[in-house]
């Protein structure tokens, strides 16, 4: 009785969380979609792209008679290239993402999911197929997939620093990894090299809290990871600041190196900044990559 009740309560709470995330993601995606459509090149597709003079080699049936009848020249109607890509997303669900240094800030996980889902919405609208890395949710198209994604991301993991999922990657697809990348670097390296081996290119988006960038702590402090697996005690937190920042910069450098080696793009986003800018960057990065 009691267990069923709590289960139902929890599931309702979970269900209620889904629509706001979806709605916010839709909202965010709506701000980006304006005026930026398609592949912007001629190719196979349904939408009109342009008329061009008929050239040698064009078959007769390609001539657009309606346009050509207006003059002596013959025109061919070109359509915009529309081709579906598979984009695989991975958003860090680890406990380390459940962190916000200030009450007014969203947690990193929240921001990461929002960005991931918004990207998914944009991609679905652009006709792409979207899915998760791994085997749980292979890329599909359609709005239902967005809901499935939202569902998949509504669960938190208790373990710190989950490694990127790199199994079952579709060759030559695109991938988006969103995480704070504060966990073991070799896992990321493994995932990226594996992806590069399969011709998968994509984007790493590092989401960091402003507190992690500035390290505004002083005095005797015990630092603890969110999951509680790692802890470090210091007597003078203020003294650690410079060395910490140095290490953070090194970590970023390592990520940059890794991306350069594998042909991925690396983005950095702080939860204190606007999500829209990050989404824009993310979308452009993906867009540019497809060209």
């Amino acid at each position, binding site marked *: 009785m009691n267990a069923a009740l709590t289960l139902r309560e929890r599931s309702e709470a979970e269900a209620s969380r889904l629509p706001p995330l979806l709605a916010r993601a839709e909202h965010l995606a709506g701000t980006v979609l304006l005026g930026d459509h398609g592949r912007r090149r001629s190719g196979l597709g349904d939408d009109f792209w342009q008329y061009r003079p008929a050239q040698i080699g064009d078959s007769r049936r390609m001539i657009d008679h309606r346009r050509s009848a207006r003059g002596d020249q013959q025109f061919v109607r070109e359509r915009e290239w529309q081709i579906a890509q598979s984009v695989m997303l991975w958003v860090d669900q680890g406990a380390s993402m459940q962190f916000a240094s200030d009450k007014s800030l969203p947690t990193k996980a929240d921001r990461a999911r929002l960005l991931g889902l918004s990207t998914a919405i944009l991609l679905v609208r652009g006709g792409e197929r979207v899915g998760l890395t791994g085997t749980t949710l292979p890329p599909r198209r359609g709005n239902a997939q967005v809901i499935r994604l939202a569902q998949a991301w509504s669960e938190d993991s208790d373990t710190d620093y989950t490694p990127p999922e790199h199994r079952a990657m579709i060759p030559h697809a695109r991938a988006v990894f969103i995480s704070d990348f504060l966990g073991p670097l070799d896992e990321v390296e493994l995932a990226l090299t594996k992806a590069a081996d399969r011709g998968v290119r994509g984007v790493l988006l590092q989401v960091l809290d402003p507190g992690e960038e500035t390290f505004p702590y*002083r005095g005797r402090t015990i630092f603890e990871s969110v999951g509680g697996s790692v802890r470090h005690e*210091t007597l*003078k937190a203020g003294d650690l600041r410079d060395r910490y920042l140095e290490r953070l910069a090194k970590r970023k450098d390592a990520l940059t190196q890794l991306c350069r080696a594998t042909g991925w793009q690396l983005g950095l986003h702080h939860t204190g900044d606007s999500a829209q800018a990050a989404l824009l960057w993310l979308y452009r990065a993906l867009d540019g990559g497809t060209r």
Partner: protein
Amino acid sequence: MTVLAGIGFTAPWVLLGLLTLPILWLILRAVPPAPIRRLFPAVTLLLGLKDDESVSDRTPWWLMLLRMLAAAAIIIGLAGPVLNPSRDETGTGPLLLVLDASWAGATRWSSTLDQIDVQLSEAGRAGRTVAILRLTEPETPVFQAAEAWRGRLPGLTPTPWQPTETQIDQALAALDQLDGGFDTHWFSDRVAYGGHDRILAAVQARGAVTVYQSKAPVVAILPAAYQDGVIQLTAQRAVPGPADRITVLAQGRDPAGAMRVLQSAEMEFPGGETLAQVNLALPSELRARITRFEIQGQRSAGAVTLTDDSLRRREVALIAGALNREGLELLSPLHYLTQVLKPTADFVEGGLLEVLPANPDVIVLADVAKLSDGEQAALVEWVEQGGLLLRFAGPRMAASDMGRDAEDTLLPVRLRSGGRSVGGAMSWGEAKGLAPFPENSPFYGLQVPDDVTVTTQVMAQPDPNLADRVIASLSDGTPLVTRKALGLGQVVLFHVTADAEWSSLPLSGLFVEMLDRLAVASAAKSRQEAQLQGTTWEPIQVMDGFGTLSDAGNLGGVEGTELLAGAIGPDLQPGLYESGKQKLALNVLSEDTVLNPLTWPSDVPIKGQEVTNEKPIGGMLLSLALLLLTVDVIASLALSGRLGLAKAAAVALGAVLLVPDVQAQTPEETEFALNATQELVLAHVLTGNAQVDDVARAGMRGLSQTLFYRTSVEPIEPIGVDLERDELAFFPLLYWPITPDQPQPSVEAYAKLNAYLRSGGMILFDTRDADVARFGAASPNGRKLQQLAGPLNIPSLEPVPRDHVLTRAFYLLQDFPGRYAGTEVWVEAAPLDAEQIEGMPFRNLNDNVTPVVIGGNDWASAWAVDRNGQALLPVGRGYAGERQRELANRFGVNLVMHVLTGNYKSDQVHVPALLDRLGQ
């Protein structure tokens, strides 16, 4: 007490605790602050980072200093520091405090008490027993612990009298009962009284005497005197000193009845003098209101003088020889007198024998020649008792032979037969002006205007004593006004008439001034022993030593002679006394009181009263420590980054401390007012019966819609009004359906309703029972209506007359059906003098909007519509029923129009008449 650097310590050994401070410093230094637990995902990057030093963050030096200061403040505070420690050599043995405790010290009483308090605490520290002896209320002194006296100090008050001889005797007797020797501290008031040397001798025999007396001047005011139309005020000071100014305030009730300062005057004591005087010339109306004079800045009974009857409005009886010329008021011989005296005097009406028992201050006889013997005797007796008889001459007096051969008792002079006439058409001379007033005349100093002329007068026989009795004469030397004393009173004769027939004197302002001078003279009745003989005076209000009046309570009556003797003491307290209708003020000082400074023998040390008080500062230091520790808590939290929690606590604390202003209008009230006033709103009274309320609301909605469609009145959604809670002033019309079980409104609600009706609101009472009952108490609803409307301020009612403006405010209507077309409708009755003008269809009824309309036709049901505008309830049957609903709606429109436009439609009846006059 140990004194260190000007600060005394009651427990100096506690100061050794200060030595522990350096140890505390070291300990606090050594203990690191507790670690804080923080969640931090990037801890992976921190792993392996070593601290440079093994020593943790130290507590910052300023926080340490704060804590040290707090600790030091606690230690010093516990050591009992005292600022201004008194270093007087205190004696030993019992101590007697002798207080004059008279009115003279009342102004400085609080500082006296402070000093007594200081003495008591000193005596307490020295372990001396203390007794207090008040010379004005002597009791046998009892030596007690000083602390026991301190609680009783507020009960010591000064008395409004100086120590009397009997009290001195009592005090001496009380001193005799004391055993052994004692020191004496004498708090003197600086004003001399008989017998203080005897007391001094008695206490000097027992031990050392020290006198404490303040250097502040003792100032008192003597009773106000009234002479020659001005109030003479005299102030006295006990010790002559350099020139000084004081301000005297005349207090009384203003026309609204509130006590206030009516006038203030400055007085100046010349250097070396003890007396200061000022003359206050006040309008008599103002003068009559004054109840007391007091010296500003003094708070003693001696600085207050009360006024009594002598300033009240005078009672004047006006009696004319001929009063038969009814209606010709300007020709009445008393007209000018009435005009002059009206502002300052009360008139006593009636014949001479009727007014005499009322004992008026002044009796005016205008051209009265003949008095009966009884009248004459009574009048003479009244004058001899102090009355002022003011006579005016006239044709009758001139024609009579009174005062011809012998002097009439009630005439100041003998008169020559016939009088004389000058300046007329048939006479040689010119009209005479007035001569300047002689110095012994009460009119001396008044300006004689040139245009005052006398054409006719009665002439005085030359007599040896004539010259003494003339107080105003004409330019040719003939007497115009004569006066003689008669017993305590006087008789004054104007040799002209009181009207303007014989002279232009009554027309001039001089007449007013002359009467004023004379009437003032009449009011200043001196208190004669003969007058007070055998009377008993009852105290109404008595003064305390501070000059504050309080109810006399159960104090017994006082013999008149005793009152006059004026020996103020516990048996005869200063204040207001009453006997019959007369009032008498008994003041602390009488006219002949002289204040003398108290002189002390040279061997008695005299100290001023101004001392610096000891001030324990231990409490302040402990509070400071608490404050510092609070700062330390906040600072520590801020340092360790936990201030967020502290902020919340501080906000909560602040919220508790700063209680928001409860007088602000609540949001609900504001919202209600906004809703009710953004557009016109019809309202109905909530009865508590949900069905009735719903119908009423629907009815109001239907009426609002009807108004909206048909007229320029565009009400919004109606509001149900709770009489207890809601403000009514926003609504032009209240529909009040009656249910038998609705609660009676509270008194406050009725007050609101009455204010609403007075300010032009209208209530439509609907008993909703016209189908079964007629208007009246026959139905339960009717009875309830009578109960409900009972406390309301409702004028007399009548059934709506055929020409009432309700019948034509918008539609022309003959009857006012609702759901029922039954009884008549009642409105405020038309005034009785409303007459129908010939040829006009309506009466002139330009009065207010009727405040109530009462009926039982259940209008709301007829008006009621649902949200879609469909009629909610059936009315009648078929077409006739719809017609009835239409008429009900029209009645509603007429009603609202009547409320909003008043009797505008009634005014329209004037239009034909106006057009007619304009010649159209």
